[in-house]
């Protein structure tokens, strides 16, 4: 059963990144791996889109970047959520929830 992976809208990538970084600061590779594992391959995000989103979010000051050391002692760029990013995540999550609920109400009326 191999369904074709769902293409994601730009805004979706952003909110997924924010959610991911809400756990802990991570480098770009970490974010990619986390999303892949969490969605069990259902959502594939091209790493290109991921990195573009990371730099875009940094510019928006929703996340900030700092150089640090990775698990295997290599210099890596770690991203973490800013206060502004946390606020943004809350808003986006609420929007997503109401969006999804609305869609489900149509698809699976109780």
């Amino acid at each position, binding site marked *: 059963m191999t369904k074709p992976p769902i293409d994601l809208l730009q805004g979706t990538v952003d909110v997924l990144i924010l959610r991911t970084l809400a756990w802990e600061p991570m480098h770009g590779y970490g974010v990619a791996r986390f999303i892949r594992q969490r969605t069990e391959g259902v959502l594939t995000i091209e790493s*290109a889109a991921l990195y573009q989103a990371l730099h875009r979010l*940094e510019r928006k000051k929703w996340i900030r970047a700092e150089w640090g050391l990775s698990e295997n002692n290599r210099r890596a*760029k770690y991203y973490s959520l800013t206060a502004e990013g946390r606020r943004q995540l809350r808003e986006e999550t609420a929007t997503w929830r109401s969006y999804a609920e609305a869609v489900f109400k149509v698809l699976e009326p109780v």
Partner: protein
Amino acid sequence: MGRPRRYLRFPWRSSSRLRADLDEELKFYFDMRTRELVEQGMTDADARREAVREFGDVEYTKRYCLAEDAMSRREERRTDLVAELRQDMAHSWRTFRRSPGFAAIAVLTLALGIGANTAIFSVVNGLLLRDLPYGNPDRLVRVWGAHRDSGVDRSQLSAGDFIDLRTRQRSFSALGAFAWGGGTYIGSGDPVRLSGARVDANVLKALGVRPYLGRIFAVGEDSSGVNPTIVLGFGAWRRVFGSDSTIVGKAVNISGRSTTVIGVLPPTFFFPTMAEAEIFTPLDLTPVLRDVNRTRKFHYLGVVGKLRPGTTVTRAGTELKGIMAQLERDFPQSNSNMTVATVGMRDAVVGDTRPALLVLLGASLLVLLIACANVAGMLLSRAVSRRQELAVRAALGAGRARLVRQMMTESLVLAVGGGAVGLAVALWGTRALVASAGDRLPAASQVTVDATVLLTALAVSIASGVVFGLIPALAASRGIQLALKESGRGTSSGVSRHRMRTALVTGQLALAVMLLVGAGLLVRSLVGLQKRDLGYSIESTLTFELMLAGARYDSAAAQDQFFDALYTRLAALPGVVAVGGSGNIPMRGGAMASLAIDGRPQPEGRLPEVGYQPVSDNLFKAMGVPLERGRAFGPQDHKDAPPVVILSESAARAYWPAGDPIGARVRLGPNPNDPWMTVVGIVGDVRMGVDGESRPTAYVPSRQDHWGGMAIVMRTTTDPASMLPAVRREVRAIDPTIPVSDAYSMKQVRAQGLTDRRLPMQLMAAFAVLALVLAAVGVYGVMAYSVAARTREIGVRVALGAQPRNVFGIVVRQGMGAAAAGLTLGLLGAAALGKVLTSLLYGVKPTDVVTFVGVAGVLLAVVLAACLAPARRAVRVDPLEALRSE
């Protein structure tokens, strides 16, 4: 301390740095992903290829990310600058909170300098620079008569000369004449005396006046004819006629004649060189032109012209002088030595206040210089004492530019604060200036602090902040390495900076000395004028003016009757010593008349002119003018009696150098058919105005020359002002339509006459005191700093046996050295610049020794006082502590 961490993390990154960062970030991803794929069983090469493939568009991603990063960087830089500025301001604020005295003195110093400057500049701007309330003020010209022989250059013109000038000239598009006018408004309440002018229609046309209501006179409306008309000034309209907007077309009673109001002039308008005029009536020249004796010999017209485009005041003047030269040849009897003087309207209106205004402007600039020097000095020594703080900040990562910026922010905060407080001072000062100047400043109603002035003040304060912030900031940032190593002992840079401060203080003292000398000279002039003997007594004397109005006073007998009744009634009031009347009181000027002497040959050209006054019997007694010889006037000198005259002492001396004029016969005035008048007495000289000299004068009985109005002089035993209600009551009892106007004590009249001297004197004194205080603060500052910097040296001296007396001497001698240098420079400067003041001085030379010595004394005393506190602190230095602290 968020800043250094931020610096360590991401200082503003260069573009190549951004690219390197991105490459490293992506390489990390590919390495990690490749390893993951290898762990899943791929070969190394396959894994790497797969990582790149599944990534997506690498090149596009790189471009995208770099663009985003560049944008972030730009924004970061901007917010960093704002943050730094806010940080600098906050830091400045904290610094000032720690030393509020410093901040307060610096702000106040600047505020006073800027404020005084702005106030003065506002007045100057309003008077000298701003437009007059006329259309095309720069093309308006005031034409005066001038006498080549006597040096008089601002006299009136005769009607005949004016008509000839007007018809022959080509320079003016309009040339108009005006004369004194005015009248009494007789309404339902008390009668009101209104000063005014009689104008020919060309005057208002030349001035480009647009009426506020109704219309102004049309050319040709000049002859007063059967239907008298009047134009009201705004002030009279508002005050006397209650701003009645329907007044145009109404008939009002002016001096007993029903007069139709045809218009009201706008609020900004004032009549040039006769600002007090508030009613305007047509000027009718025909009666004078018909009377050959007065046509060219009766000088009573002011003349105003509007230049045609393309010509200049000078060229127009040359043309008019040419016409006058022709008239001089044609009418030698009346016109010999007569010419004209033309003056641009702006100069004519601002007139005599210009030198005073310019001197004050200069003075305020000096004060601003002193204030800036003070703040510079303060910033300079503060920069020295803060070298350690700066060094620490530098060590924590603040760059040199950042430090300079921070110091600049501090001085700018000070400057803007000083500018803000200065504006308050300026607003208040301008109002105070205009209020104390009163109606003496011709166009005072226009003087307000305007946007230009505000911006100028702000620019000055900010420029001073930048300049005086930059010098110490650069100096301090240079000395940072030095400062870290040693703790502010007397280094060479410290010494040179101290020398700079001493130079600043010396300069300040010199400027203050110059201002003190100026103020001293003006004070001495005024004191001299106030003590001056005028030739009559102004103690306990009341004066007021009465102008008879209405047809019933057309006859001389009626006038005599009124004044006889008046003198009798007033003399009967308790507390009155003597009452008299005169055409004018000498402090307000007077008329002139030509003098011919019976039995002497008629001179070639014009007859000599003497002062001329009709006076009542008791005037000399009331004024306190001594009768030297002969007799005073009395009831026997009535209108039908043989005409008599009394001469002033100087007239007697001038025209009868050897003999006795009593019994001689003279003729006054231009009419050769007038009867000869016999000289019956000689009185003492009186001086004209408050600062004028006496002039040969002839007095005639007021019963033999009726002017219709008199200035009454009343000598009392009590406070003259307290007599006024009784005076009004008596006048009303004789005729309730006659107003009592211009009632003052003689002392008040003199005070008014001195106003335009008192104002510059007071301002100059204020500036001088301000300058002295600022300079004293400067001296105190430099001495206090010097003592603090030399604590160790003083300690050593005390340890080696120096007495408190010696220590005290060292400090005081240093201060006095600066004082002596400043004093010398200042006195030299004052002597060099003194000429500027000449026109404002009276009876004092610009190099007055008393003033110079006095100023030297005051300055040395003030500097000594400023040195006392630092000197006392030096004496209290404990040698053990001073040495241990190093």
